[in-house]
């Protein structure tokens, strides 16, 4: 309990730091015990029920004791395509327990988790916070053997990745896979120049420059960044905040991970500039749990920026104070939604808020807040450096500049590509060396599944807007397995607040399985479409409003596959299986099941 007390006092009994506190306790003690919850309730002055509610919301926090080694294996679609099942079986066999369980000796716990941002090097897993990529059966066996020898997890890494993955504070086997460097994110850059330039302008002029550049949010929603800053600035309140959304959880996206190792200053500089523009003195950097391995490195970069006068008091000698605090997530896709992220950053369950009021009016701690994506902020830094006109010279009329794409799946070179907006899917497939392509998933699970007839469409805000997750499927892949993986993802990641998303997605999946199993009729096909539209229309936040997309967009692109599955001759197929229904009763009574005889 001493360590728990220490952790609580480290965060000054601040209720808004509950996630950080729980995360630290989880790392220290392996779980959050009843005794700990009681101690937390007393010192933070919140009820036990509420703390239990927070713990149970997040993947990486647990009330029940877990093993000394906790392995989270990614279950995203690219992980499946790269051989996840074989790896999972090998892990289960060696560890002596199934997924969801702890080995009998209490040494190893095996768990599944949603996309961890390693789609270009799957199957990947997180073990006690350390990332393992490109797993094979052999590697899996080796890892478990080393666990049995009680080795330190970090020491199990044999080779580090490139770039800052080799930094002594990171030491990760993660590879950057930067395949194409563009002029914005990977262009010329010297830390501090953009801050220097911005602070010599008025905040209004900074906003104006970003507006002129027509920068739109790079996380996926595409809201104009300059306008967001302006709306936030206009709100009358003594406190304003900048929040950086580093919770990239959309299956298939991993660009922010690379930005954070290779261009962290550019991101933090963007936060300073945003802070100056909106009138904030504090920036909150919300880092997804899966990227905790970057935490020490990012803290180090922030410290270095403080020493260089780029953060803290009197930045660049221009009488502007601004600092950045890192807040941890604990594993929840929905926290990528800006209002859920704010709730989580305040130490609560990551339930989205009702809007209006929007975060620019009522955000972090009830104050006007601009929430911007990692890439958006890095891009803003370069816009200040090189000017709006330079930025507008790239991309299309509406969609200016470049975009980082996270490309994974069936292609020769998965990885990060910085491209100008306006690229067609066909050009993209050529660029990455994709052959025999069946489908391209643009924008992750919540995006669209495109068939060949759409490969002339362009990546841009007026045609195919995207946060940059691109997953490629070749002709050997089964569309229904992909849809199933995505539907399971949304069922798992729904916060459960509103009825259409919570109950609807479960029912939608049942209907999907009915059709795929061959028991569907034309009516089922009509119903799955209308249920999908209902969930999209009435759900409370972006998660529910996009969750039926895997079904709806494949119904558009691959309708013939669904048509083939349904029974055309009949309008009703019974799902009821009498033998299965009476199985339990037969066992209890010891009687045999007999088909009803009509001749009796």
């Amino acid at each position, binding site marked *: 309990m001493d360590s728990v007390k220490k952790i609580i006092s480290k965060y000054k009994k601040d209720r808004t730091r509950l996630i950080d506190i729980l995360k630290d306790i989880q790392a220290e003690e392996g779980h959050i015990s009843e005794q700990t919850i009681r101690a937390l309730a007393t010192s933070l002055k919140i009820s036990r029920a509420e703390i239990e509610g927070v713990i149970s919301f997040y993947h990486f926090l647990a009330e029940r004791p877990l093993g000394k080694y906790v392995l989270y294996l990614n279950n995203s679609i690219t992980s499946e395509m790269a051989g996840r099942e074989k790896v999972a079986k090998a892990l289960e066999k060696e560890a002596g327990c199934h997924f969801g369980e702890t080995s009998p000796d209490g040494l190893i716990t095996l768990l599944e988790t949603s996309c961890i941002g390693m789609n270009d090097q799957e199957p990947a897993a997180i073990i006690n916070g350390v990332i393992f990529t490109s797993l094979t059966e052999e590697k899996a066996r080796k890892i478990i053997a080393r666990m049995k020898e009680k080795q330190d997890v970090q020491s199990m890494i044999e080779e580090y990745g490139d770039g800052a993955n080799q930094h002594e504070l990171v030491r990760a086997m993660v590879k950057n896979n930067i395949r194409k460097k563009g002029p914005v994110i990977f262009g010329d850059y010297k830390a501090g120049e953009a801050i220097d330039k911005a602070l010599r302008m008025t905040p209004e002029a900074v906003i104006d420059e970003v507006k002129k550049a027509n920068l739109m949010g790079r996380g996926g929603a595409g809201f104009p960044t300059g306008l967001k800053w302006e709306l936030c600035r206009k709100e009358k309140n003594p406190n304003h905040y900048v929040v950086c959304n580093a919770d990239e959880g959309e299956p298939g996206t991993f660009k922010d991970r690379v930005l954070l190792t290779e261009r962290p200053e550019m991101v933090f500089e963007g936060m300073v500039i945003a802070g100056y523009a909106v009138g904030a003195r504090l920036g909150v950097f919300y880092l997804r749990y899966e990227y905790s391995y970057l935490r020490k490195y990012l803290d180090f970069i922030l410290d270095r920026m403080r020493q260089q006068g780029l953060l803290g008091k009197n930045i660049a000698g221009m009488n502007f104070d601004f600092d950045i605090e890192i807040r941890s997530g604990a594993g929840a896709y929905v926290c990528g939604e800006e209002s859920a992220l704010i709730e989580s950053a305040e130490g609560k369950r990551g339930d989205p808020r009702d809007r209006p009021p929007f975060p620019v009016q009522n955000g972090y701690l009830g104050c006007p807040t601009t929430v911007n994506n990692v890439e958006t902020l890095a891009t803003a830094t370069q816009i200040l450096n090189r000017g709006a006109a330079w930025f507008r010279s790239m991309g299309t009329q509406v969609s200016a500049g470049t975009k980082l794409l996270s490309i994974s799946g069936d292609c020769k070179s998965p990885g990060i590509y910085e491209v100008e907006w306006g690229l067609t899917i066909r050009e993209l497939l050529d660029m990455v060396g994709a052959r025999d392509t069946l489908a391209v998933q643009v924008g992750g699970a919540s995006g669209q599944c495109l068939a060949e007839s759409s490969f002339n469409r362009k990546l841009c805000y007026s045609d195919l807007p995207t946060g940059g997750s691109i997953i490629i499927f070749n002709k050997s892949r089964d569309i229904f397995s992909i849809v199933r993986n995505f539907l399971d993802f949304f*069922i798992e990641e729904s916060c459960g607040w509103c*009825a259409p998303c919570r*109950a609807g997605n*479960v*029912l939608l999946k049942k209907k999907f399985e009915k059709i795929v199993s061959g028991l569907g009729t034309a009516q089922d096909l009509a119903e799955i479409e209308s249920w999908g539209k*209902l969930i999209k229309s009435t759900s409370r936040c972006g998660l529910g409003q996009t969750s039926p997309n895997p079904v709806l967009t494949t119904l558009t692109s691959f309708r013939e596959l669904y048509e083939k599955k349904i029974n055309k001759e009949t309008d009703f197929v019974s799902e009821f299986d009498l033998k299965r229904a009476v199985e339990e009763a037969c066992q209890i009574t010891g009687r045999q099941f007999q088909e009803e005889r009509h001749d009796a």
Partner: protein
Amino acid sequence: MPEKLKFSLDGRECVGEQGMTIYEAAKANGVYIPVLCHYEGLKPVGSCRICSVMVNGRWMASCTQPLLEGMVIENDTPQVNEYRRAIVEMLLAEGNHFCPACEKSGNCELQALAYRLGILVPRFPYQFPKRKIEAYPGFLLEHNRCIQCQRCVRGIQAEGGLKIFAMKNRSADVRVNVDRKLASKLSERQIQKAMDLCPVGAILKREVGFIRPIGQRKYDRQPIGSEIEGQK
């Protein structure tokens, strides 16, 4: 005096006030928009979505959406009613709702909405989930019937705003979680309030039941919403 706002509701010109939600503005004009998670005096949370209306072609929850000048609102249209019916059916299929055996029958808002919307049987397959019944001093928590509306979370708190009821888990596993220690200090009046707040039969006061016979209960004689429509 708050600013007056003009809006249209199913083609009728109406006037509301700045600061009202769509639900409140409709009510002030004698129009009932069906609600389930919403409760007068509690902060709206928009969890059931039954109050969804179409505003200028976009879906919005009327319990949380502030009224704006010039809104064109569709409330009593075939499409809006169809979606509402579907959501009520979803809730009925999601839990275990056996009305004839329920203490809340006749006072239950979910049941009353199902009647009002003309639901005979849900279009969705019943999920028959395995859920618990928890006993606390003075009351029972019947998870089979809970629809996660969060009225108890919002309406019943301990001293210092401590949450006696809080949400636990997520996705389809989301449940009301009770702080046993704080719940043991609930007064009889608070327990009665919790039961009255609960729109279904999930929170039940112990050792009393069926005081008012079925047939003489709140929604047995007139449909839900008629108290608002009667003001016209």
